[in-house]
């Protein structure tokens, strides 16, 4: 009982005078972090753009080897997961705790599905000798394309994995009654992060699967 009354009357964390101040600070901090993430992936985009500028034909040839169908399904999976994450946040705000837990777990499962599908793509491409380095089947420019492809999607996959862990931890903590309908900064911020991971994928999907595909 005591824990539930505590949950009803949350108190602001140490340096803050009010819950609202804490929420604003948390959101602002996370947006700064997201800006930072965008610049991190921005470096890969610059590298991609420079390669595309110097080797346009090789990039067109290389992008024909990426799996449009699987990539498309992966995009759908992430988009749906982002939608579900928003609904999960909304249910928590309406104090529908059990629904929120189920939805967060669904997000985690979809994240894992994404990783599985993308792992399948990677292994197919490795079988087609598209891994940069010794034994690569294609021109130098195509190697450049696949180098960026593996590094950028690899780092994106790492972000998805972190998101999956976050969602699972949040679901477990919600089960312990940790967050209240009024005050749940960790849930809100993690879901914001998940949307960014989704957004970054949309950018990578466009660059590696869609641009000038013949």
């Amino acid at each position, binding site marked *: 009982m005591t824990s539930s009354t505590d949950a009803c009357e949350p108190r602001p964390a*140490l*340096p*803050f005078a009010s819950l609202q*101040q804490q929420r*604003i*600070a948390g959101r*602002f*901090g996370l947006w*700064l*972090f997201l*800006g*930072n*993430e965008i*610049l*991190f*992936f*921005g*470096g*890969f985009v*610059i*590298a991609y753009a*420079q*390669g595309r500028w*110097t*080797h346009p034909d*090789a990039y067109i040839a290389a992008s024909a080897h990426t799996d449009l169908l699987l990539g498309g399904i992966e995009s759908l999976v992430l988009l749906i997961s982002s939608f579900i994450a928003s609904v999960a946040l909304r249910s928590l705000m309406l104090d529908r705790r059990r629904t929120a837990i189920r939805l967060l777990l669904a997000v985690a499962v979809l994240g894992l599905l994404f990783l599985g599908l993308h792992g399948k793509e990677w292994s197919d491409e490795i079988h087609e000798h598209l*891994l*940069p*380095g*010794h034994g*690569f089947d294609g021109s*130098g*420019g195509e*190697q*450049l394309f696949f*180098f*960026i492809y*593996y*590094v950028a999607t690899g*780092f994106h996959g790492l972000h998805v994995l972190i998101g999956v862990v976050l969602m699972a931890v949040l679901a477990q903590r919600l089960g312990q009654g940790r967050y209240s309908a009024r005050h749940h900064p960790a849930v809100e911020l993690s879901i914001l992060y998940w949307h960014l991971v989704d957004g970054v994928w949309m950018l990578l999907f466009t660059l590696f699967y869609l641009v000038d595909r013949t």
Partner: protein
Amino acid sequence: MSDATTVDHSYLDDGNRLIDWLTTRDHKRIAILYALAIAGFFFLGGAAAVLIRIELVTPAGDLLSAEGYAKAFTIHGVIMVWFFLIPSIPATLGNFLLPLMIGARDLAFPRLNLWSWYVYVIGGLFTLATLIAGGVDTGWTFYTPYSTLYSNSYVMLAVCGVFVVGFSSIFTAINFIVSVHTLRAPGLGWFRLPLFVWALYATSLVIVLATPVLTTVLALIAFERIFGVGIFDPLIGGDPLLFQHLFWFYSHPAVYIMVLPAMGVVSELITCFARRRVFGYKFMAWSILAIAGLGFLVWGHHMFVSGQSTYASMVFSALSYLVAIPSAIKVFNWTATLHKGQISFEAPMLYALGFIGLFLFGGLTGLFLAATALDVHLTDTYFVVAHFHYIMVGGAVMAYMGGIHFWWPKITGRLYPESWARFAAILMFFGFNITFFPQYLLGMHGMPRRYHEYPPEFQVLNVLSSAGASILALSYLLPPCYLLWSLRRGKRAGRNPWRAAGLEWLSESPPPTHNFEQQPRATREAYAYDQLD
């Protein structure tokens, strides 16, 4: 109720087992943790500098092999840039003072602050591992394709260390920005903030916007080493120059990450020891932001001889000259602040005046290097080495030392011995100039950097430089001795031994864990010394 128990209780009394310190979320204790770790790396990087200067006493390569010398200057650069200069003022003085200066109980995210220190330590362990494994010989700039395809040293370990430590500065920067936006005391509007807070704020913006690009480029180096090919590999049509663009997109702003906080410290010291309002406060604040912004537009001046387009070089050259404008505003305004001030020459003031002189010299020689024609002659000579040491060591380290002395009474509650401190400050100024001024001359005469041997005609100036370095080393060893002595034997400092104007001096010395007994209010402009005296 809880307030009543914390009144006479300083942050230093709040549990002194090791575990209390290692799990603390108090910004003041985290600042101390940072200060200790950073001091350790400073002396490690300094040891590498000692090796370099001893080797260069004679023209022949007798102490170190060419490879050993390359490893010595690489580890010197990596440690001094990423493990000392970048975190030095923000993570120690900034961490300790920012909440006090804005009248807050702590930074916005205390746990993230502690994480930042642990991440720094993990990055530091990678660097120590690099050193123990056998070192790295690429230079601190990790230029490709040498770092990716040809170097047989421990590039991966070193790159991992720098990759990891980047996150610690990003965490601190996010914490600072959010704190300044959300936790200012009532009455403390933006244009009442001390310039040190402005400087930390601008520095944090630069860190957040530049560091992720360094992270990207280090990741690309690491994967190029793993795959054996990559986008910087000219053999498959990649472009090694792309590395330089991405690297300097971070590393030029990084210069301002090092020097902006130093400028902030100097503004505090000059006003206090001239007992005057800072001249042109708003110009000072805006010029900090202007330097931070322009810093992102000038990276190409590191690449004048790289084969980039001449037109690009012209634009980068012109933009680099622009940086001189806000920098000059700052120097002129500090000087104007001194005018008709009641100046006293306590040790922090000596450091601050030293900063102005050395920064001026470093900045003016920076203009030489921004001129494309002259730069072709001076690139990769000791002129460049002297220039950036004047800014980073002459500038940033002098300000760091000045700041440590100025706030030492606040941090520890004790006064340091004044005459020893003045002696060390003066020694440092002369030692520094004797070390690095000859290097300008060496560079003008064409002595290239990064070689362990040199033609005999350069010996006199090199011996002078090494002699100066030994004076400089002594002046760095003195402060730890008398500062540690003062921890037990120093006189007790009251709340405000300098009669300084900032909010941090309203708190006890040393401050209680929660900083202020009551939420302070800002009733005056910053630096209202005319109203104070």
